[in-house]
């Protein structure tokens, strides 16, 4: 057993990160969730039900697609895309929400709440709730309800209530605050379905476990396709769930280098970025000790980047830990680079990515020439671009 197999520790810490920094009112519910999850993990029926849903309903396994034209365009490397964009609802988020909603049912909770940025987690939660007949309320920053209007409509059609959040920067950070406040009030009957590897223990571990299906499949698929492990795994990081899902199953494969790509917005020299792992300092946000974008006095900064799903001043504590122990490297690319990568992938492969994974593609494009010839790269293609078409077309074609 290596160290991450035993991480987080029993109190939810990844080294100095993680933990449970929440109001006392929800502590009992977190304990209940931890116990329910521990029991579910040992229960073959639960595992079978989740696996069946992932296969028959969500569309797993997703292909690991060799992107021949993209590879050739970038240089002498072999790029594989882990196609989470092909899942039901259009992104990796469904892996987690099916797991959590199954847990909610086990715990007898009839109502589920969620926060959402790009709306993908909100849609995935609303979908799982519709599937199980649970009441669903999604908190979404008002600014995000506008730039991701299509997802708001999808959630409503799925029967969820979408509550716009008008405090702070009116984006994901504020949606998280409001979801936690609502949970503090409704905790006896409600499960809070967190959408990323953030929040208090046990969420970072729980969401990582549900998302690790990405990396487990990718590992087997690349071995089958190439007969060896990749040199590099690249994924975008907002809260960090698709990146941890891809990285974690390769943790012990020390030769596989991890690069997490954050949204650099208009550049790290401006205040318009969300490069938490690159520029943040240790702090506490939304229940966990992690890296946080904050001012000198510890006030959380508002972020402002093109991709709503990366527009967040915190990050999962496990990423902060990977950075600390230098297991992963974290970088930032600008919105403009991401838009260009969107066009690149659309033109070379006929795949329109969501804005979020476009940051990962953009970073790969930037470093491809420096990679050793014949390098094998796995990129987490976390979602598809339908939701972003208005923004992408306005910025690229308009």
């Amino acid at each position, binding site marked *: 057993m290596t160290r991450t197999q035993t991480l987080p520790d029993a109190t939810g810490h990844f080294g100095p990160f993680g933990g449970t920094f*929440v*109001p006392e*009112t929800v502590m009992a519910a977190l304990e209940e969730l931890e116990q329910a999850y521990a029991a579910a993990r040992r229960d073959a029926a639960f595992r079978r039900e989740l696996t069946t849903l992932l296969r028959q309903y969500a569309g797993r396994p997703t292909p690991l697609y060799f992107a021949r034209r993209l590879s050739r365009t970038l240089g002498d490397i072999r790029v594989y895309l882990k196609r989470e964009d092909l899942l039901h609802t259009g992104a990796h988020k469904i892996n987690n929400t099916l797991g959590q909603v199954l847990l909610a049912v086990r715990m007898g909770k009839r109502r589920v709440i969620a926060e959402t940025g790009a709306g993908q987690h909100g849609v995935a939660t609303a979908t799982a709730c519709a599937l199980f007949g649970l009441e669903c309320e999604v908190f979404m920053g008002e600014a995000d309800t506008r730039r991701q209007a299509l997802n708001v409509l999808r959630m409503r059609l799925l029967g969820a209530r979408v509550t716009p959040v008008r405090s702070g920067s009116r984006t994901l950070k504020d949606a998280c605050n409001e979801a936690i406040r609502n949970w503090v009030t409704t905790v006896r009957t409600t499960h809070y379905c967190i959408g990323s590897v953030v929040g208090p223990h046990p969420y970072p571990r729980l969401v990582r476990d549900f998302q690790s299906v990405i990396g487990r499949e990718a590992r087997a698929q690349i071995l089958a396709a190439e007969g060896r492990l990749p040199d590099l795994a690249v994924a975008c990081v907002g809260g960090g769930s698709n990146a941890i899902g891809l990285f974690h199953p390769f943790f012990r494969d020390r030769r596989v280098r991890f690069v997490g790509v954050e949204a650099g917005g208009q550049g790290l020299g401006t205040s318009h970025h969300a490069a938490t792992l690159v520029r943040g300092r240790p702090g506490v946000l939304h229940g966990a000790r992690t890296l946080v974008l*904050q001012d000198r006095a*510890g006030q959380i900064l508002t972020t402002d980047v093109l991709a709503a799903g990366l527009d967040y001043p915190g990050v999962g504590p496990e990423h902060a830990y990977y950075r600390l122990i230098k297991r992963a490297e974290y970088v930032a690319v600008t919105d403009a680079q991401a838009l260009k990568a969107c066009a690149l992938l659309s033109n070379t492969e006929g795949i329109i990515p969501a804005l979020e994974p476009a940051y990962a593609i953009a970073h790969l494009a930037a470093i491809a020439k420096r990679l050793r010839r014949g390098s094998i790269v796995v990129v987490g293609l976390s979602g598809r671009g339908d939701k972003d078409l208005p923004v992408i077309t306005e910025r690229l074609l308009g």
Partner: protein
Amino acid sequence: MESIRGTFERLRRARRRALIPFIMGGDPDLAATGQLLLTLEAAGADLIEVGVPFSDPLADGPIIQAAATRALQRGTTPHQVLQAVRAVRPRLRAPVVCLTYWNPLMQYGRDNGQAFLKASRACGIEGVVVPDVPLEEAGPLRRAAEATGTAVILLVAPTSPPARLRAIARASQGFIYYVSVTGTTGARRALPPQLMEGLRQLRLITTKPVCVGFGISTPAQAAAVARMADGVIVGSALLQAMGQARSRAGAISAAGRFIARLRRAV
């Protein structure tokens, strides 16, 4: 100046209950903070909670959130709030405790709270309430507080199971902060019916003073809570009363009148 323990002992001997108003440091402005402390004591406050504003106050409802946002928009820093308390501290008898969140507290000296607690103690602050630090994470805070002689006041909630209740009651210093409702701070029309039973349960396991906060807004509610608790904490309703005034002076006198009215009930 009295200690928290001294205040509760004196009140117990007199068979009186503590009235504990909450104000947000820097709201409506920093000059008002010191004046409010003096006015609240004159109106009958036995202990006063001063908030250090944080950008993302998870445990707070809309009224206290808005007060924090206003204070931050004026550029209020934790240091300034501490200095505002210090300026009037010699003229106050009532102990002052500080309510804030873990991030601004730990960032003050980037040292897990040691620098903040040293500074707050030097400004005459007797205790801290940090609603996002539950017992499990309270180790660093408690160690830093112990070094300065500051009380770490812990919260119990209606959802705290018996074993947690006992552990928190044992560990809390100064008093135990009983959260009356399953929810965030904010004035409510009615208090939950289970409140009295919850307080009775807590009384069975501790002799420490128990003060009740979250949701108390009227003299009648305060009087009902005072029958079962050692103290009544009022925040949102006080800020609401202040918010109706047009000027700083008006807000301060509104605060005084509001607390005097509650004083007659408690």
